[in-house]
């Protein structure tokens, strides 16, 4: 009898580093948007107040979105790492139990 886990342990641990995408990229995008939000107002000018306020809001929303996505990706990555450790422990336990039964049977 052998364990029935279908989890690919090596792959799971490797995939856990980048579950959705590259966290660093999302953080960079967020920082770029926040940085640009400081200069876009001057670039747009004041001739169209509607556009000025829309631009300010747009950059704030998009900057926060990528920050939140970076956090979510990190959280899911950590979650996957925890799952990997969990499955690894479960597999180890299963193997130990199996060996224990084997010794008894012999």
């Amino acid at each position, binding site marked *: 009898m052998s364990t029935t*886990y*279908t*989890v*690919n342990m090596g*792959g*799971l641990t490797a*995939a856990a580093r*980048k*579950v*959705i*995408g*590259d966290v660093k*990229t*999302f953080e*960079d*995008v967020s920082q*770029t*948007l926040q940085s*640009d939000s400081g*200069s*876009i107002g*001057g*670039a*747009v*000018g*004041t*001739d*169209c107040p*509607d*556009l000025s*306020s*829309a*631009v300010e*809001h*747009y950059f704030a*929303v*998009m900057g*926060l*979105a*990528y920050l*939140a*996505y970076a*956090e*979510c*990706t*990190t*959280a*899911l990555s*950590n*979650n*996957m790492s*925890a*799952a990997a450790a*969990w*499955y690894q422990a479960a597999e180890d336990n299963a193997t130990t139990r199996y060996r224990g039964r084997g010794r008894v049977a012999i």
Partner: protein
Amino acid sequence: MSGESALPMPNGVPDSMTSIAVRLSHSASRADQSVIAVQGPSAAFIKQAWSDGTASQAASGEAGQLAKKIVANDTRLRQGDAALASYARTLRETRTTVERLRVEWDEADGTYRSKLNHINSAEVRQQVPEQARQQLADRAAHDRDATQQNIFRRYDRAMGTLQTQGIVAARTLNALSDDTIPRSKTGSADAMRSALTGDLSISAGAMKRGQAAADAAAARDLVVKAAQGDRAALEELQKKYGDKAKDPYFAQALQQALGIKGTNQAIFDMLKGQVVGHIDDRTRNDALLNFLGTAFATAADTGRDGAFQDVVSLQLHQKWRSEWFEQLKADGRDTFKPNWASPSFSGYYAQGLLLSHASVTAGPAYMDVVGGDFLAYDREGIVNGAARTYIHGFGSSGSGDITTPGVIGANSQRTAADPMHGFLSNSAVNHDAAKTFLSHDVPGGKESVMAIDYLMKERWNVQHYEAGNMTYTGFGDKGDALGRAALAGDHDASDRQSTLLPRSSSTTMPRVLPKTHPETLALFRDILEFRHTAMR
């Protein structure tokens, strides 16, 4: 008036706007490529890796959901780029137009001045009468004004086009923003974050766990210092984390940060501080124990599982708790003794102390798994009618009264040092917990007995050695906690489990009542009356 004064230049900087717009597309591409690189070739692999169990499948599903959100946002960045680039193009064209119109404006002025100079020249003055020259001057002014009015109309049209383009770009950007976060949810950064990730329950749960772990790490350091008598640390602990003791995320994280041995060490430090005189105010120890005990019970209580709103957090919590209960059982039977010369106490002493101070129930699962083992352990320790030691806890150091780091209500310190008091008093705040604890089968002796029978027939009469004599018996609180637990567990006769308790009590109580203290007699009489009333 010059063209520069008459025709104000639109005041944006198109080149800056274009470079920012280009960056939007560049950022979108980077994020897209990152998602594709991971999700594309790895998607099947991740699916396979996460194929085991509902939690893993849910997490995998959420990963896909998040990837879609990011890709959708990348599209919005490109659309934002297009809107800004379009406005920048119009702005650039408008500025060019305005520059040209200014030149035309100034040329009209120049033509007018030239004509006027000619009209006023000596040669014309001699040849043309003044009235005719005046008419020529008026005609020149009229031509200039007509030209400049025409220029001004073209200027207005150019600025109007710019305005229109700005409104279109604003509308596009607002729509993109609202698609990302509805305007009604942009009141604060927290509200925006919630709107962005509200439907990503696993991510939100993971973030909560991360925050709880960070808080717990900071709280652990304060607990360690407070247990050693640091008043400022205790104040900071209460101020920053006092309310979090009842938060299941934080409560679990604190148990993990401290570890069972770490909690024991904190209790040891409080006890030692009192023995050697470093800590003279037990109410501060009580405050720390209230915090630790409440967090301990919160982490143990299955009734709080509803706080874990995503399947991954819930399963991780339940798995951790199940392992923690086993560790608590092993530690409960172990002796905590930091070094060979240290005084010591049992792990169950520490748990009893925490339970005595908890303001919330540890719940029926804890009372079943750990409480059941504690009852067995307690019964195993009774030999020839005497307890294994005169206390479970810390030995006194000369004064004979250092058995607990705090003071529990009006009860004696010995009561506080008896872990049974903690288990019973904590059971007493929850019907299911009390019923589970008191209905437990307790192994040992000639046969297993129900906990209520063990407590009332055997434990009640146990002798505790004290300074060489055996004058102290049973329960230090004269059965108060037992009575309250029996009352809490006894009021529901709607199922088989709960009817066991009344039957047990009704056969046991008459036999033990004659030996009990008058106050306890009255209490049990109340219990019996209550039960009979309830059963009628």
